[in-house]
């Protein structure tokens, strides 16, 4: 999607823009929360987030304002001006998340966003993702925590061994497998408990 890996086959479009043909325009509409976080240890979260906001096309003033807002929204004011070196996993995740959403992209991709987060941060993240969804953003995230997926997702795609094995709403997947929970449905669909351990 970011043009870093070449597709063996098929195409990917973001808001109707082919990522292979026009990667720059496609990336304008994307926010990425990577795994690992990719922090700059010697920068503070404020500097880090402002830097990526500017890279996404915002002016310096707009980037600083947007950074201040996102820092407040994620309750990061206490760590905003400390260098990232020595941050806990939760603080790292929050910084990376703030970077992904600071420029208010229409699409946000998150790679296991709740790993290492404490209970309060996980709750804040959930609220933030729901808020982004309510604001009309498309949020695509990967997760192994089925409760989280069930609580947040409208559409679930289950993958095993690099292939899509099922997709649909949480309800439709449960209905299809005759299970009460998404976790049970997931094990049933992938045919083993490998996915849980992964």
């Amino acid at each position, binding site marked *: 999607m970011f*043009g*870093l890996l070449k597709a063996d086959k098929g195409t990917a479009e973001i808001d109707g823009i082919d990522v292979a043909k026009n990667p720059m325009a496609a990336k304008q509409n994307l926010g990425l929360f990577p795994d690992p976080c990719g922090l*700059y*240890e*010697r*920068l503070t979260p404020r500097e880090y987030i402002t*830097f990526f906001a*500017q*890279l996404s*096309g915002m002016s310096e003033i707009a980037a600083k304002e947007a950074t201040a807002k996102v820092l407040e929204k994620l309750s990061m004011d206490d760590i905003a001006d400390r260098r990232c070196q020595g941050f806990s996993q939760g603080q790292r995740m929050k910084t990376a998340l703030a970077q992904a959403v600071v420029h208010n992209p229409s699409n946000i991709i998150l790679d296991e966003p709740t790993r290492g987060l404490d209970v309060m941060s996980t709750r804040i993240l959930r609220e933030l993702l729901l808020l982004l969804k309510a604001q009309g953003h498309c949020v695509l995230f990967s997760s192994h925590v089925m409760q989280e997926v069930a609580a947040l997702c409208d559409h679930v795609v289950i993958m095993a061994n690099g292939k899509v094995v099922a997709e649909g709403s949480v309800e439709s997947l449960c209905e299809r497998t005759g299970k009460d929970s998404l976790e049970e449905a997931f094990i049933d669909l992938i045919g083993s408990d490998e996915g849980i351990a992964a």
Partner: protein
Amino acid sequence: MINLLKVLYKKEVMDASRDKRSVVAGLYYAIGAPLGICILFTLLLQQLASPDALKITIENSLSAPNLVAHLKNNDIAMATDNTDSKLKPIILQISDDYQKNMREGRPATVTLIADKSDDKLRKHIQRVEKTLALYNSEVASLRLITRGVDPQLMRVLAVEVNDQATPDSKGGMFLGIATLSMILTVFYAAMNLAIDTSAGERERNSLSLLLSHPLSSLHIVLAKSAAIATFSMLGLAIILVVSKFSYGMVPWQQLGFSVTITPSFMLFCAVVCLPIAFMSASLQVFVSFTAKSFKEAQSYVTMVLFIPMALSMVTTYDIATDIVQWLPIAAQQFALMEFIKGNPIPVPQLVLSTLITIILFGVFSYLSSRMLKSEKVVFGL
């Protein structure tokens, strides 16, 4: 594009300047090199000004009291104690018929026994040989005078040397070393930063995040090169200032030349070295990206930096062929040396080598940006 470059450059400089260990490690060279050169030359000059007393073994010395006295006047004494630390393994054997031959005006044999393959001993052997030759000519002149012959008859040519060198131009070898240290600063001062900002960035997983933003890989490479070049130029500024003060403290006048780092030379050096700084930065970024890890990059960059060092040394030791004198670094260093000597600057060589340097910067930057499109390079696979 300019705005993006500015944002990237600002971040690179800020990030690099906070990596104090890397910055200081690079600047150690800029401060240490001229000071080291000065200490070395001061010691060398002291040795030249007052050579150490030399002690040798003279066998059958009683047969040649005048020769022994002559040697002693030239600080070459006969050892009385075999454990003397100044005693060198040089033996001067005076033949038994020395006095008889001297009396009769025939060549009196003295045998010098020493190992000429011993590098440390060679200069001492030469000193003894020179002193013996001087004694030889002095006694020969006296013999001619006693026979009523003018010793000037022995001089066939009266060679007069009219040295046109100025005090500044005489120190060629030293100036070569001084300018070599300046050019190498441009390469070494920011070496750690160059590796950290490329191979290090990939190892910290921030490179892929950077590339996921709407900017081209060429933007990233150019900003990184500019930031590295900034630190290289900072290193150059430091070495120039340290050189200006430290070279002034070495007693060059003993060798009959002077070394003056003037503000105009400092400016000229900065202008000549700026393209080299950019080329060096792009080369180091390129090499760092070809390596798979930070440590591997350190090894490769160190190896690659032998090339500019070799080119620079070719000029320093004056072993350049005509073609090499047109190559980057060699030509720029030559221009710096000519400037400091007060000679005309070789403009065609300087212009061409600067152009080649700029082209190399473009080529390395392009190659690095191409590499950043490969998933193998971005993820270090």
